[in-house]
């Protein structure tokens, strides 16, 4: 009898081990709708997650430090405005086609022709396939940020697109299927509901067994739904857009918190063309009156984790030109009063308009904080809620741009050029990023020097100068350096978002599924 039980136990244990060994692991996460699968149109966070997993780029940011390493490219060199990349041999697309320099040229041409997403990064750039494994890019002018911009040029399988397309650039095809070299291929894609991806075992770098076999990226889940799903063990990683109190509640219930220290910040942008903010002393008064410490407390999630870190200046910590972490900004009402006294306008004659974007409820809290801070100086202000679409329309003219606009902005390539040039160069006034309408020759010169510098030291010097000049001009109140926080189940390990030495420093790249480990 005992032998029978023992035998039974052994069989049961073997079956259990076998089923565990062969059980498919599924990672479930969510993002805001919609998921754009076409890599040439990718711009949002969900799009980036899809792009970084289904496609590959010539270079990737180094993990845990500055600079870039080759990915599809083995090496590169530059001479003036010409960059030459040597491609890795033996890389296959998911279709089985071999990746060559022609695919790189096609990917650039396609992105430029469609003109969507982040294609503006490649304006004025042309590419030529020197041979199958060498591609040469020619720029209009030297640009030190060009290599960084390569992280936004996913390489598309030209032969596959040409063979299956129903329109000139295969837009219909690539909005529903994958044509990349990435570690995951698309099984099913519904842009409003879910994208299902499966691990591609022939990935050129190989994929660890512990990486999820299947990934289900869901779109548009409500906070209450995500909270219930995670509590029931039916969801693994929540989007960063959950309210802080929900992330905290999930953390209190045992969820782990993943962080992605980005390359961006939260800004209060002042319209420098509108009285009284066309006077630098008036702007300095407002910047000094802002309560930075309370702003940081408002975004704290737990005692240890926050959705941001204190701002030290105009450039986020970790980028070229950033100030040290000992230079945290703080409210200084005495300085504010002194600046106010030096201001050529009487604030009593003005009612400062503080806008907030309707889709980001957190901004209303910051608007109320500003109103309270300004009231301490006797400055009148009113709060205006603006839907994003209306805001983007209004900032196209200085007269319609509010006195103060609140914005999250990040460097789409991780390079300070893509964060700062669009915000502050006088050639880009009146975009959603530049409601300051700043027009300063010194700022322009620093930005151009940062772009043209041939060495890291040169870039550091240019951006440090820019930082100092921007702080002096006080066109922007630098609220905090942004950090994305994600609540996650303990079924998944994400080293790129828990270990700073593994972090990429680029939004969305932390969600490289091939680098994740499923524990169940």
């Amino acid at each position, binding site marked *: 009898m005992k032998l029978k039980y023992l035998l039974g136990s052994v069989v049961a244990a073997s079956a259990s081990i076998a089923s565990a060994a062969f059980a498919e692991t599924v990672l479930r996460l969510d993002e805001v709708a919609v998921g754009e699968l076409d890599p040439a149109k990718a711009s949002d966070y969900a799009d980036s997650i899809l792009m970084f997993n289904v496609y590959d780029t010539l270079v990737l940011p180094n993990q845990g430090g500055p600079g870039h390493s080759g990915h599809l490219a083995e090496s590169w060199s530059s001479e003036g405005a010409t960059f030459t990349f040597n491609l890795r041999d033996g890389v296959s697309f998911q279709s089985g086609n071999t990746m060559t320099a022609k695919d790189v040229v096609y990917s650039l041409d396609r992105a430029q022709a469609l003109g969507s997403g982040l294609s503006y990064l490649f304006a004025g750039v042309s590419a030529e396939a020197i041979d199958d494994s060498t591609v040469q890019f020619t720029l209009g002018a030297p640009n030190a940020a060009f290599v960084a911009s390569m992280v936004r040029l996913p390489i598309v399988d030209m032969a596959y697109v040409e063979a299956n397309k129903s329109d000139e650039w295969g837009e*219909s095809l690539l*909005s529903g299927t994958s044509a990349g070299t990435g570690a995951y291929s698309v099984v099913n894609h*519904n842009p*409003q509901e879910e994208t299902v991806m499966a691990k591609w075992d022939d990935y050129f770098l190989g994929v660890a067994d512990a990486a999820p076999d299947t990934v289900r990226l869901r779109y548009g889940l409500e906070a209450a739904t995500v909270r*219930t799903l995670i509590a*029931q063990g039916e969801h693994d990683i929540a989007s960063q857009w959950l309210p802080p109190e929900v992330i905290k509640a999930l953390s209190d219930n045992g969820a782990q918190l993943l962080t992605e220290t980005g390359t961006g910040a939260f800004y209060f942008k002042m319209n420098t063309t509108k009285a009284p903010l066309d006077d630098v002393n008036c702007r300095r008064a407002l910047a000094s009156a802002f309560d930075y410490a309370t702003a940081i407390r408002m975004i704290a999630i737990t005692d240890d984790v926050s959705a941001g870190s204190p701002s030290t200046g105009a450039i986020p910590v970790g980028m070229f030109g950033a100030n040290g972490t000992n230079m945290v900004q703080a409210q200084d009402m005495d300085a504010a009063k002194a600046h106010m006294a030096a201001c050529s306008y009487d604030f009593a004659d003005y009612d400062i308009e503080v806008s907030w974007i309707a889709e980001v409820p957190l901004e209303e809290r910051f608007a109320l904080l500003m109103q309270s801070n300004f009231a301490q100086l006797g400055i009148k202000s009113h709060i205006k809620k603006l*839907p994003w679409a209306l805001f983007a329309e209004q900032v196209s003219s200085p007269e319609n741009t509010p006195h103060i606009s609140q914005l999250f902005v990040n460097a789409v390539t991780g390079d300070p050029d893509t964060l700062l040039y669009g915000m502050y160069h006088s050639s880009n006034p009146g*975009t959603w990023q530049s409601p300051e309408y700043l027009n300063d020759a010194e700022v322009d010169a620093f930005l151009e020097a940062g772009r043209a510098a041939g060495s890291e030291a040169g870039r550091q010097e240019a951006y440090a100068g820019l930082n100092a000049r921007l702080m002096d001009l006080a066109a922007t109140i630098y609220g905090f350096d942004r950090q994305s926080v994600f609540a996650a189940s303990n079924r998944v390990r994400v080293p790129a978002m828990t270990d700073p030495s593994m972090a990429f420093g680029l939004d969305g790249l932390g969600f490289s599924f091939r680098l994740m480990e499923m524990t169940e």
Partner: protein
Amino acid sequence: MSQLVGILVRRIGISVVVLIGVSMLIFAIARIIPGDPARIALGPNATAEQIAKLRGEMHLDENIVIQYGFFIKDLVSGDLGTSLYTNRPVTLDIAQFLPATLELVFLAGVIMVGLGLPLGILAARFRNKWPDHLVRALALLTVSAPSFVWAVILMLLCAYYLPLFPIAGRLSDIYEIERVTGFLTIDTLIAGNVAAFLDVWHHLILPAVALALSGIGQAARLTRANMVETYEKPYIEMAQAYGFFPHRIARIYAFKPSLIPSLTIIGLDFAAMLGNAFLVEAVFAWPGLSRYGVNVILRKDLNAIMGTVLIIALTFLIVNIIVDLLIAVLNPRIRHSTRVQS
């Protein structure tokens, strides 16, 4: 029969005129919503040249009458254009999202009628007694809270604390069903997968109940009020005097005339659920047309707005035609008045 055909033809004629009116109105309103659709579609980093190019492709620089002409020309050929929100043909989006909403709304409608009317009859039959008080209290409770509140409450009660129902979606991950009609209740049967068929119904129940609850209360209250009024009519007193059984009086003499006003309201409620389903769809992660509709309005996706509104308007009109026909069947005076008019 010919009277009913006459009513049908008249209603269809009116519906076509209404649809044209709706298309003109929405076409104009969609263009008044703040924001440049091309700028929104291309994203915040698009250059002025890219925006100008897309505006040209969308005829946005033309006169609004000419724009409407382009829209009608494409509509006649079955082309609703491309959605700037999903970057796919609007017809494809509607084909994908509409069945999910129709499945949800249809079941919610059945629940609303199946529970609302009997509860109303029960309350009227036992008016001013405890069943009446109970039904009225329940009806008040369900009517006073909007669908999305019920959605969250039901999800917490029946999926979180008591894990009886799934939390999100239309079908569990373990099933891969080929989408033939888009109606998963049908597609699972076509696939011959009974387990998946049951799973679809399992997913449907909670959101459908959440959507139906306020309608149930309204239908019950309306039916009760109409029946109580009918009970005071002399012919009911006469039936009672003749000694007819109370349930016969309720079923035949009180319910049928009371149903006509209830039916009109239920018909409107049923069609309105298409729009109201948005929040329930959001809570249960239901990939339906209502959610799509709200998202495309927020993004000023002109083609998708037109497509969604026209489909909802069309469904609304179809339901109204069915209700009108039912009322005509139930009420001979309406059939007669139609004959006299014609």
